[in-house]
C-alpha cells in the first residue's frame, strides 16, 4: 500500500531565486508536493543558470533543469507597477516566499516584507542571502565557492603540510543552503499555522556554512590555536585513508578503528601474523605506527579493484568504500535499491536520470518530480485561476510587457 509522498500538497510558495541554492530549495519542496511558482522576467530578471553552457533556448540549460524540477513559471516584470501589484496580490493567496536576491532588491520594488504581508499576515518569508540581510558586508557579492573560502573551510580542506590551499571546485555552501532553507521554511510554516502570524527568516549562507565547522571554532577558541588541515587522517583510526587501487584513478577508503576491526582486517589481507605484532597491538600503538600501516594497506589495495577491496573488507565488518565517480553512482546497487534516480526519458536536453532525495518515508513512494515548466508557461493559469483575471486583462498585460 504505497501512497505518493505529497506532504506539502496545498502549500503555495512564490520563489524569487537564481543560481543553485535558491532554485534547488524550491525543487526540494516541489518534490514533496508544494506548488512552487518561480517568478522571473526577461526584463532583467532571468535565473542566471538559464545561461549556463551553450544553449540558445533559455529552457534548455541542463543546470537550470536540474535545479528547477517540478517548478511552475510565471514571467512578470517586477519593475512595472502592475507587475509588482500582481505579485502583492499573489502573495495574498500564497503561504510563503523564498528569495535569494541581494538584500533590499525586493524592498526597492515595493515588495518588502511589510508590503507582501499586507493582505496576508500569515505569510512566511525565507531569505537566503550570501552574507545575510544585515551587517557591514551584506551587500557583498558571494558565490558558494568563495563563501567556502571565507568560512575557513577552504583553508582546512587540504592534505597536511601543503605549501598552498587547495580547497574544492564545488559550492558546498549552496548545498547547505538548499537543504537548510526548506527545513527552516517548514518550521516557519508550522509556526505560522500555530500562531496565525507570519515570520521572516534570514538564513545567511555564510552562517549555514560556518554551522558545519563549529567543532573547529570551539577548538580554536578553547585551545587558543589555529586548527590545521588534516586531509584523510583521523586521530582515532589507523590504518585510515584513501588508497590507490587497480585501474586508472581508482581509489578505496579504508578505516580501522577498533581492535575487532583490526583483527578482521589482518585476516582479510592475509596477514594474521600482524595481530600479535607489538607495533599494532592496540589503537594507540597503531596510531603511532600509522605510516607503516598505511604502506601495508596501500600495497594490498593496489593489487585489487576498488570494488573488491570494499566488498571483502565490509563483508568482514571493516569499514571501506569505493571512491565513486558520477558513472559509479548511476550503477550503484544500493542507490538503485532505494529507487534513488528519477528517470526522464524525454526532455529538451535528451534523456537523463537525476537523484531525488537523501530521505525515504516508509510506506510512501517518492513524490512527483516533473520537468520545469517552460518560461512563462503558467502565466494564464496563475493569473486566471488563482487571481481571477479574465483573458482580456491578461492579453493587455502581455501587450504592455508586464508579462514578459
Amino acid at each position, binding site marked *: 500500500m504505497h501512497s505518493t509522498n505529497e506532504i506539502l500538497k496545498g502549500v503555495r510558495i512564490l520563489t524569487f531565486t537564481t543560481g543553485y541554492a535558491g532554485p534547488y530549495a524550491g525543487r526540494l519542496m516541489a518534490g514533496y508536493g508544494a506548488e512552487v511558482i518561480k517568478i522571473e522576467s526577461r526584463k532583467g530578471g532571468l535565473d542566471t543558470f538559464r545561461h549556463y553552457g551553450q544553449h540558445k533556448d533559455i529552457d534548455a540549460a541542463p543546470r537550470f533543469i*536540474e535545479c528547477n524540477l517540478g517548478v511552475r513559471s510565471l514571467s512578470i516584470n517586477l519593475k512595472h507597477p502592475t507587475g509588482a501589484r500582481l505579485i502583492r496580490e499573489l502573495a495574498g493567496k500564497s503561504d510563503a516566499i523564498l528569495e535569494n536576491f541581494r538584500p533590499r532588491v525586493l524592498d526597492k520594488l515595493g515588495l518588502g516584507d511589510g508590503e507582501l504581508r499586507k493582505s496576508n499576515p500569515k505569510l512566511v518569508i525565507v531569505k537566503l542571502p550570501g552574507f545575510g540581510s*544585515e551587517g557591514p558586508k551584506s551587500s557583498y*557579492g558571494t558565490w558558494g565557492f568563495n563563501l567556502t573560502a571565507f568560512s575557513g573551510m577552504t583553508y582546512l580542506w587540504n592534505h597536511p603540510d601543503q605549501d598552498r590551499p*587547495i*580547497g574544492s571546485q564545488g559550492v558546498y555552501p549552496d548545498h547547505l543552503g538548499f537543504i537548510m532553507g526548506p527545513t527552516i521554511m517548514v518550521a516557519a510554516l508550522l509556526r505560522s499555522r500555530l500562531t496565525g502570524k507570519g515570520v521572516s527568516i534570514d538564513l545567511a549562507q555564510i552562517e549555514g556554512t560556518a554551522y558545519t565547522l563549529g567543532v573547529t571554532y570551539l577548538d580554536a577558541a578553547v585551545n587558543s590555536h589555529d586548527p590545521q588541515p588534516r586531509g584523510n587522517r583521523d586521530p582515532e583510526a589507523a590504518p585510515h585513508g584513501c588508497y590507490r587501487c587497480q585501474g586508472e584513478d581508482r581509489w578505496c577508503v579504508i578505516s580501522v578503528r577498533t581492535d575487532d576491526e583490526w583483527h578482521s582486517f589482518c585476516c582479510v589481507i592475509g596477514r594474521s601474523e600482524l595481530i600479535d605484532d607489538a607495533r599494532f597491538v592496540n589503537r594507540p600503538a597503531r596510531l603511532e605506527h600509522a605510516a607503516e600501516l598505511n604502506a601495508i594497506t596501500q600495497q594490498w589495495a593496489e593489487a585489487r579493484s576498488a570494488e573488491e577491496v570494499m566488498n571483502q573488507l*565490509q563483508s568482514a565488518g571493516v569499514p571501506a568504500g569505493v*571512491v565513486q*565517480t*558520477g558513472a559509479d553512482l548511476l550503477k550503484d546497487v544500493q542507490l538503485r535499491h532505494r529507487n534513488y534516480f528519477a528517470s526522464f526519458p524525454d526532455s529538451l536536453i535528451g534523456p537523463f536520470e537525476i537523484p531525488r532525495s*537523501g530521505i525515504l518515508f516508509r510506506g510512501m513512494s517518492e513524490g512527483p518530480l516533473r520537468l520545469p515548466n517552460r518560461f512563462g508557461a503558467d502565466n494564464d493559469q496563475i493569473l486566471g485561476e488563482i487571481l481571477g483575471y479574465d483573458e482580456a486583462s491578461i492579453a493587455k498585460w502581455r501587450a504592455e510587457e508586464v508579462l514578459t
Partner: protein
Amino acid sequence: MSDIDNSNSLLPGFRVLDLTSSMGAFCGKLLRDLGMDVIKVEPPGGDPTRSEPPFAKDHTHREGSLRFAYLNAGKRSITLDIGKDSGRGLLLDLVERSDIVLETFEPGYLSTHDLGYEVLLERRPKLILVSLTGFGQDGPYAHYKTPDIVGTAMGGLLYISGDPKLTPCNPPETQSYYYASLFAAYGAMLALWQRETRGIGAYVDASIQASMALHEHVAFNFSAEGRVMKRAGSQHQHNAPANLFQCKNGWIALFVTQAHWPLLLKVWEDHAPELDDPKWINSNLRRAHADYINAQVTSYTSRFLKEDLAELMQKNGIPGLPVNSPSDFMKDPHIQARGFFSTVTHPVLGSFPQPGSPFMFDGKRAAPSPAPLMGQHNNEVFCGELGLDKKYLEVLAADGVI
C-alpha cells in the same frame, strides 16, 4: 502552544528523543536550534562522542570533548541502558511524551530490542521516527559500516575533491554526517507538517550515501552529458578566473563570470593589452585557457593584502573573498556584528564563543547554550517529568540502568 509568541525560539513546544551517535547528533542540534526540547539519551557509560577529539587543553575527559560540546549544545542529557528491561520501559515512557525519535543504530537494532517503529507507535500514536544510517534501512549495503570518509567516498564528493596530482581529499570535520543529518532534519519537519495537517505519524529513512550523492551535479553530469567530473583543486569547471589566487599575505578566492570580466579589467588598470581582445568575454574561452588567465591574474593579485584586495573587488562589483583561517573568520567584523557567536559558560570547559542558531527570525537569533554534562538531567526528567521516586532512581543507578 500559546507560548510560541513570547519565546525567542522559532518553534518551541515539541520534544525530541535523540538516541544518535555522532553520526546523527547534528540533526538533533538543528532541531534544538529550531526551538525544540531535545533530550540526548546516552548509554550509562556516556555517548561515545564524549571520547572523540578535539579535547579542551588536550585532556581526555568525558566532559572535555569539544566535538560533543558543539554537537550537543543546548540539549538535555539523561543516561539510560535501553538494552535492559527497566531501561526499555523508561524509554517507552519517554516516547509516550515525545514527538520525534532520532536514532543511528545499525538497521534492525531497535527491532531486536523490541523497540521497532510499530512498538513505539503503540505507545505514542502519530510518532515520528527518524533513522539515519550510512546506506538506509535495507538493501545490499544496509549493513556496511560508515565512518565519515566512507560516506563522502560512496556519495561521490571525495572523488572530485582535492588536487588532481594528489590523493582525493576529505573535507574537514565529518561533513557527510552533517549533511545527511540536515536531510534527516528536513524529513522530521516534513513529517511534523504531515502530522499537523493530516494527523498521522511517519518513519523517515535517511541515508548518508543518498544525501551526499546529490552533490555538485556529479551523477547528473554523467547521466545528462556523459561527463565524469574529476578533481580540479579549486578551479571551477565553467569559469576562469574562478580559483584561489596568491596575495602578499595569503590567498583570495575570486569568481569572475562574463558579467564581472569587464569590471575586473577596469579596476586592473595595467593589465596586458591582449586581455582587451573582446573574445575573452566568453567564459568558456577563458576557462579553456585557464592556465594563461590565472597566471595573468596572479601577477595582479600578488601585489595586495588579501583583505584589501577583497574589499577592492567588492567595491567594484567583483565577488572576491579572502581565504580565511578559522580564527580569521571568527574575528571578522561582519560575523561579529551579526552576533553569530555568543559566549557560553560550561562548568568544565569554561567560557568561550560558540555559534548560535544558523538563522535569524524577525531580526532575532536564538543564543546558544552549553552542552549538558553526562546525565545532568536525570533527576529533572526521570523524577520531575516521569514521576519516579528518587530512591528508585538510586536503585536504577546501582543496577547500571542509568
